[in-house]
């Protein structure tokens, strides 16, 4: 033996092999407790590491709940593994447990679904506290992510609680998850205004604004020759953190700068011709037939010129009129 003790011999000794209760031996009891101790150690380790990992991700209350749940689940598994050593027939327990499990499963289906979704949300992190998100049709600022639900506040300051299952299974639009975001305006100017100059003015304004990002750069271009004027598409990027502030201030700055340069935002306008006898000839129906000097463009734009109705009702048509500055008119 040279001083060492063979553990096999110890477990095969009469003390451990002799039955103490039914066919249960002292060795079985020893194994039962060894498995329990191992289960406790594993449960503690998992619980501790889970707590450390989730420390900055979930609230303290939820953290306790998760770590305790993990502990008891692992301990229960160890206990069930150890029970057969005490000659306990698990088949009865499993059948009963199965029935109880089905009942509890049906009863607590949504609770469990929310719990599981909450755990996945914590790991996946599609949203964080303080972020501005759209969950289905609800626009909220996230205030708390709990284990069963997520708490938010609408922009009106209204408290909103959304079950985690709903968040997990629906589309989430996170407006600030990315570092920067783009926004755009449609700036409309009159046809007689210089679009190239307007673009330069807008680009200069964007360059002056610190929060309109240098890279990715802005994009300003004529996008559409619309019925009332030329539409200049203005796209720019801003840091997500200040996006809304810039979005709400830049449009008025652009409008003011264009107006300071003599450009105007055109109003909707429509010229109606009513000329049943002569035919649809603009020369005889446009405002130029007035004997008085044409009014300035801005006055005309506001008020559609309407000719008095003469003749049949069904013989009139509409066409856009671009004001007195239109070549060959006025």
């Amino acid at each position, binding site marked *: 033996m040279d001083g060492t003790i063979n553990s096999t011999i110890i477990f095969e000794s009469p003390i451990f092999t002799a039955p103490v209760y039914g066919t249960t031996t002292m060795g079985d009891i020893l194994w039962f407790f060894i498995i329990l101790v191992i289960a406790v150690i594993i449960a503690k380790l998992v619980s501790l590491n889970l707590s450390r990992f989730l420390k900055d991700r979930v609230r303290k209350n939820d953290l306790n709940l998760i770590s305790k749940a993990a502990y008891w689940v692992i301990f229960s598994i160890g206990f069930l593994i150890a029970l057969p050593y005490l000659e306990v027939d698990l088949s009865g327990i499993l059948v009963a447990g199965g029935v109880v499990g089905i009942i509890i499963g049906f009863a607590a289906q949504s609770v469990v679904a929310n719990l599981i979704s909450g755990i996945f949300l914590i790991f996946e992190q599609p949203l964080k506290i303080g972020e501005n998100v759209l969950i289905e049709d609800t626009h909220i600022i996230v205030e708390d992510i709990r284990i069963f639900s997520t708490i938010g506040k609408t922009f009106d300051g209204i408290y909103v609680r959304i079950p985690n299952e709903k968040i997990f299974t629906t589309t989430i639009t996170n407006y600030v998850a990315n*570092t920067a975001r783009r926004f755009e305006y449609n700036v409309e100017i009159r046809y007689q205004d210089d679009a190239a100059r307007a673009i330069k003015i807008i680009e200069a304004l964007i360059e002056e604004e610190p929060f309109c990002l*240098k*890279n*990715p750069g802005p994009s300003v271009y004529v996008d559409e020759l619309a019925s009332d004027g030329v539409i200049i598409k203005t796209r720019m990027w801003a840091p997500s953190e200040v996006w809304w502030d810039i979005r709400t201030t830049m449009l008025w700055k652009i409008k003011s700068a264009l107006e300071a340069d003599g450009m105007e935002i055109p109003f909707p306008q429509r010229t109606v011709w009513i000329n049943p006898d002569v035919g649809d000839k603009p020369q005889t129906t446009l405002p130029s037939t007035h004997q008085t000097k044409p009014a300035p463009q801005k006055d005309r734009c506001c008020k559609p010129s309407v000719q008095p109705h003469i003749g049949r009702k069904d013989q009139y048509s509409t066409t856009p009129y671009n004001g007195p500055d239109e070549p060959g008119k006025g």
Partner: protein
Amino acid sequence: MYGRYEIPFEYSDDTISLSITEDGDFFRYTRQITDDRSVQKTLLTSQNAVVTVNPIEPVNLPKNITQYLEIEFPPLLIEPDGKKVIYLLFPIEIGVIVFGNKKMEAVDIFSFCPQKYSLYGPSGGGVITKYYASDIFSSPPESDRYCTGVLRLEIHNKTLEWANIGRTVLDGYSMKIYYGPYVSMLAHMRILTPTTAETEFIRNPTASEFQKAVEVYHTLNIPSINRTFLMEWGY
């Protein structure tokens, strides 16, 4: 203007006047820049407080939304394993920092330099940077010490290919700014791969006459560990 003052104090030149004056039990801080409205703040402190006015990390204005400074310059090519020094200009922000009971606080931060932000990297995952466009100089250029400083950038191309460089991104948390005849910073830029580079500040002044500026951004000062920034989205 740069330097250390015991309160109350007054400083004035052609462009700016700064003062901390005693007003009963209070101290009134006033900053007046020519043709601009004045900024006033009230300090509740003892007469033992000390004020330092110096250039600080230029990432605070107009709003503290980033810690990174990006300097874009005309593209340059550097040979494989090449090591060259270039000089760039960077924007300056001036901090009025008060010290009381061994703690410091920036009372006021202002700048004479235009501000601009940019995005380094993709919109998802990239970083917002304070942006400045500079020319390249082979020696320290003339600079307005209230508006721009001089960055001595040592570029080391560690790759086996020529590298085309057009910008550098620096982390404000490790900036070491010195002031003397002009404001200066020293930094390394190591080209690691065709798309990545690493930047790091050097803790030495350009010359002995330069004085170290008080930093607003702090990290643990462990001498053996230098904080670097990995430019992983190109240079």
